[in-house]
């Protein structure tokens, strides 16, 4: 397993844990649409902050390893990462646009009273998490399939 594959696995584990953490939080405390509980709101953001902090730490560790070891990544890893990033960007963009469209339709039908102030922030967060998760999953799938350098 190359260092890039390991990175993708760690990325997948961190962000899957984040999504599971959120799911548990919402299951235990109820809907996210109206934050009645300050503790729940902070737990939501702390989980997110912890996931992104773990991502930063992982990238720093991987960068140190890459600089110390010889030929740990090569053109195949870069080609896979490039293609996975491109696909993840497209997917994330589509998700964000679809959610913004849903937000716009809700606003047009019911006015601003139906839209909690947190929604735009949620959409940005969902876009970011989708980007990281899709990139990791796509990269791992591509490692098992035929890839061209170009």
């Amino acid at each position, binding site marked *: 397993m190359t260092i890039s594959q390991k990175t993708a696995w760690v990325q997948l584990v961190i962000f899957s844990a984040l999504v599971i953490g959120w799911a548990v939080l919402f299951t235990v405390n109820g809907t996210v649409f109206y934050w009645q509980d300050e503790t729940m709101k902070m737990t939501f953001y702390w989980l997110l902050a912890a996931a992104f902090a773990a991502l930063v730490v992982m990238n720093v560790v991987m960068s140190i390893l890459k600089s110390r070891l010889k030929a740990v990544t090569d053109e195949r890893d870069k080609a896979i990462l490039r293609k996975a990033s491109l696909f993840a960007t497209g997917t994330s963009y589509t998700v964000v646009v679809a959610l913004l469209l849903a937000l716009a339709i809700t606003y047009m039908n019911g006015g601003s009273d139906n839209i909690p102030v947190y929604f735009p922030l949620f959409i940005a967060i969902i876009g970011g998490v989708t980007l990281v998760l899709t990139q990791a999953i796509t990269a791992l799938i591509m490692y098992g399939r*035929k890839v061209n350098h170009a």
Partner: protein
Amino acid sequence: MPSTRINNRIRRLRFDNNEMTQEELAQRAGCTRQTIIALEQGKYVPSIELAFKIAKAFGVALEEVFQYEE
């Protein structure tokens, strides 16, 4: 457009070169062992540069390592 395929004789050439290991070839060509494995399994089509480096590692011409089929 007809489908094309790039085959290679890396596994054969490794054995013909004193059973060179994948790791040894990877070091000579400047890539990872996983890329050599992917090449041997036909799961990766390399850049021209890497193809030349692999051919050079065996001391043969590019055409002796990679074949283009239509």
